[in-house]
């Protein structure tokens, strides 16, 4: 998890589209993951991720784990560039519109101390 710089996450006026964009995000290249002794190499990622909310509402809640998510099913598309400078490796994905994902949601979450279980 990493902090997002100011302006890195923007929402459309209607709140239905979220765009997350970051550059030179330090990541780890770990080709032998998940081996316990898998070696790591510093790497970097530039990416643009766009969520678009759909109309199907979703609600996930587990009082025993103190979380509640309410929102909508969504679509998400990603364009990214990865680099591993020490070995001169780069990878550029095709344009955003060509990607797809199996699961996406966007909405609001409360958990932990902010969570109140439903009254029964």
């Amino acid at each position: 998890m990493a902090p997002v710089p100011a302006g890195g996450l923007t929402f459309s006026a209607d709140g239905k589209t979220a765009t997350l964009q970051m550059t030179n995000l330090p990541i780890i290249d770990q080709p032998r993951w998940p081996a316990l002794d898998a070696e790591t190499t510093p790497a970097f990622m530039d990416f643009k991720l766009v969520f678009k909310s759909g109309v199907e509402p979703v609600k996930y809640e587990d009082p025993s784990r103190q979380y509640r998510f309410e929102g909508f099913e969504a679509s998400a598309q990603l364009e990214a560039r990865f680099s591993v400078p020490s070995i001169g490796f780069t990878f550029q994905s095709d344009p955003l519109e060509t990607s797809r994902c199996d699961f996406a949601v966007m909405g609001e979450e409360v958990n932990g101390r902010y969570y109140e279980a439903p009254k029964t």
Partner: protein
Amino acid sequence: MSDPVMNRRRLLNLGVSSFGLASLPSRLIGAPSSPESCSPAIPQNHEASNGGSCPYPIPWLDKNGNHNQPAGPDVELSSIYHFKGKLGRCSGFHGMGTDNQGNRRPWGTATTDFSYMAGEYWAARQPHPGVFTHT
């Protein structure tokens, strides 16, 4: 010793079945945790020790914040505990791309996931505004 580039190329095609952090395009693992600036300060003048301002991880995640389960219905989607705010999460990306040798490769696996969390979290006995991503 195997060629690391070949391993990486091979993983671009294979994907990874284990449930872990984002896997783009191979085991290009997500961003490291928050910077050390939020680590607990040493209290001065006998002040209370309230811990640092780093967000709490979800208790049942591993130390790296990995969910170790795919994003989906009825699972915790946030990476921050004691959080309220906007959240988007997606997983199971698929796409194509090109490496620096001109090779066309697919990218993405079932565990290739991203999220944003924008709102308020509680740490060091007070609320903090914050925007984070899990990659």
